[in-house]
């Protein structure tokens, strides 16, 4: 892979795709740390701050010496990061202002310097074009990507610790300053490599978007890195191919838009953190809570005559729930659909199924148990506990209930003198 002669035989498309893979991989990996450390815009600042370095590299080398350019760009980038840190450490300015000052002023220096002595190569470097990447560039990119992967694998653990909790890392005895330096040096490396592929503005897209997408897909760091690298490679390769189909279409923006498309899909559809799945979960929860409230009302109604009647008419339901007949019918229907009740007398009444009884008794038990807990153990007044119990009754889990029962010494009546249905009641009499 690192053989220069071999690389030179690749066609333009082949080397563009190879470069795309390298950029996607290294940006995807480091992007994870960038996103979880909340330094996403440091990447943006870096990509602008390397500009004077790039100009210096072009000025000082007779023909385009790629090593010198990379070295100068690296130095400028690191200088930028140090200046951000120094401004933050010595003044009241917040990180956003420090980043903004460094980003814009370094870029201004670069433009000013470049404009005194126009170097055509600088522009290509800044806007990035996969189509003009030479075998030498490709080799350098290969080495840098290999270095990034090597360091990330080697320092996986310490880098992870400083990303989440720098103080803890100090406590563990990690050399935090050295690690931070290594991290920002690697980040600068990656930014310089990615510059050539996507250009100065869109390096941020490569660092942030795949990693943020992966962040919505998983809670584990190493999985996030795998997903992020895969997404980065996907965006780069697809973007490079798409842009090569349209003439004079720069690949950088297409790559960035591909990454954004991936992000949008995940933003809506991610299984746990996606907007749609969150909305559906909260809708289901709302429906569950409203069913539980209907069941509780039915339970209390049947309780008033000592469970003599076995069914509830829709009229009664409308009265106890304080709704119209149509709404009461709807509410009954929702119970029937969930298998918690069945129709009787041609939809004029419903009776609860065993599973409906279990839920009804459970909610009433949770409610009364919580009221008792508040009055007996927390010293609330008995007329202050109802509203609180209305909320908690839907949330209490079995473990919490066991614990409450034990602490309250297996009570039978709530503060208002109503019986608390116990486990035995579920299993025996009513449920048959």
């Amino acid at each position, binding site marked *: 892979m690192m053989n220069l002669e071999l690389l030179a035989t690749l066609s333009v498309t082949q080397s563009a795709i190879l470069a795309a893979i390298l950029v996607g991989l290294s940006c995807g990996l480091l992007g994870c740390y960038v996103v979880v450390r909340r330094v996403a815009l440091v990447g943006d600042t870096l990509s602008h701050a390397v500009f004077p370095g790039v100009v210096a590299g072009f000025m000082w080398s007779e023909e385009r010496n790629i090593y010198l350019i990379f070295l100068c760009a690296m130095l400028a980038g690191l200088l930028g990061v140090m200046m951000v840190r120094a401004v933050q450490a010595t*003044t009241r300015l917040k990180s956003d202002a420090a980043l903004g000052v460094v980003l814009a002023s370094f870029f201004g220096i670069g433009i000013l310097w470049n404009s005194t002595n126009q170097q055509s190569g600088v522009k290509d470097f800044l806007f990035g074009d996969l189509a003009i990447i030479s075998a030498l560039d490709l080799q350098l990119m290969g080495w840098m990507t290999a270095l990034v992967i090597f360091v990330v694998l080697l320092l996986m653990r310490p880098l992870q610790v400083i990303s989440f909790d720098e103080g803890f890392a100090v406590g563990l005895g990690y050399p935090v300053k050295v690690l931070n330096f290594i991290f920002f040096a690697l980040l600068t490396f990656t930014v310089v490599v990615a510059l050539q592929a996507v250009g100065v503005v869109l390096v941020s897209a490569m660092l*942030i*978007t795949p990693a943020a997408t992966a*962040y919505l897909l998983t809670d584990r760091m190493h999985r996030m890195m795998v997903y992020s690298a895969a997404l980065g490679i996907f965006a780069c390769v697809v973007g490079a191919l798409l842009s090569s189909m349209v003439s004079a279409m720069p690949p950088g923006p297409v790559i960035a838009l591909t990454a954004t498309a991936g992000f949008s899909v995940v933003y809506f559809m991610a299984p746990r953190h996606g907007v749609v799945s969150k909305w559906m979960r909260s809708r289901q929860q709302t429906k569950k809570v409203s069913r539980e409230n209907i069941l509780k009302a039915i339970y209390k109604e049947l309780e008033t005559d000592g469970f003599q009647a076995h069914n509830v008419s829709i009229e009664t339901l409308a009265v106890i729930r304080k709704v119209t007949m149509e709404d009461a019918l709807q509410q009954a229907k929702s119970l029937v659909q969930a298998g918690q009740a069945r129709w009787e007398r041609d939809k004029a009444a419903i009776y609860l199924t065993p599973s409906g009884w279990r839920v009804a008794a459970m909610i009433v038990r949770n409610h009364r148990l919580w009221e008792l807990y508040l009055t007996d153990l927390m010293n609330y007044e008995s007329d202050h506990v109802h509203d609180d119990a209305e909320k908690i009754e839907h949330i209490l889990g079995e473990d919490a209930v066991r614990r409450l029962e034990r602490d309250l010494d297996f009570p039978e009546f709530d503060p208002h003198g109503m019986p608390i249905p116990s486990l035995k009641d579920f299993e025996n009499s009513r449920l048959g």
Partner: protein
Amino acid sequence: MNLIELPWAYFGIGAVWLTLMAFLVALPCSQLGAYLVLRRMSLVGDAISHSVLPGIVIAFLFVGDLASPWLMLGAASTGLLVTLLIEQIHHRTRIKQDSAIGIAFTSLFALGVVMISLKLRGVHLDAECVLEGSLGDILNYNTVAVMGLDVPTPIVTMAAVCAITLLLIVVFYRVLTLSSFDPGLASSYGYRPVWVHYALMAFLSVVVVSAFQAVGAILVIALLVIPASTAYLCTHRLKWMLVLSGVHALLSSVAGMYLHVWINGNQAAATVVSGLVLFLLAWFFGPADGMATKFVNRRNKEFTEPFV
């Protein structure tokens, strides 16, 4: 003496127009920038300055004129769009604000560049103009007679933008200040901090787009953040901060003009670099927060403390 007169020798009366233009661009940016820095939203300014691009392109496709006021409208709407996108990503998922900014503005910027390369090849609205701007172009524009002087049109437009900005800041000073420092208190007085936020962002987009052609998307950030940061290091009072930001804008545009002719470089970048020099001076010697000041204060304290 020769160096002092050099701009005049280069451009004649043009030197005055160029300096004035740089100042008129820098002044409204510096005033809005002061509020951005106070609200810790400097990088939202960065995001907006990149995101106005697709708005400009779409408006340009409809009207076909780079000087049309519709471009401002297009820019203001994409500027608002990016603020909304950032909030949607930030509030609805666990992605933090910095990543949300990064995702939103790179997407819109990329969209703008793609639209340019699909539809607008050959028009003077290329990626280079986006990054660098072309302040010198104003001398090629038509002139209008103002008080017996032939003033280039962009200067008149920019002066109007500048005047409106200053007027709005004076009128809404209290609301802006209150909602920047304490949104909770502002809403208890019956103001709407959220509306202030969106209005500020929309107006920022308008100012950014009018500065855009002169200095480019990235150097706009410098004009927004550097004057305000410099002033922030020199004073603890908001009124003085606004005044000093304006002074910074004036000094850096005059110094920028000289730097521009001395080394024959890009004028917008020269203005920014002069601004950077002023920032560095404030960083070291700023009366409120400069390193030298703090050092002296600390020493004085050490001297007096044993006797107190």
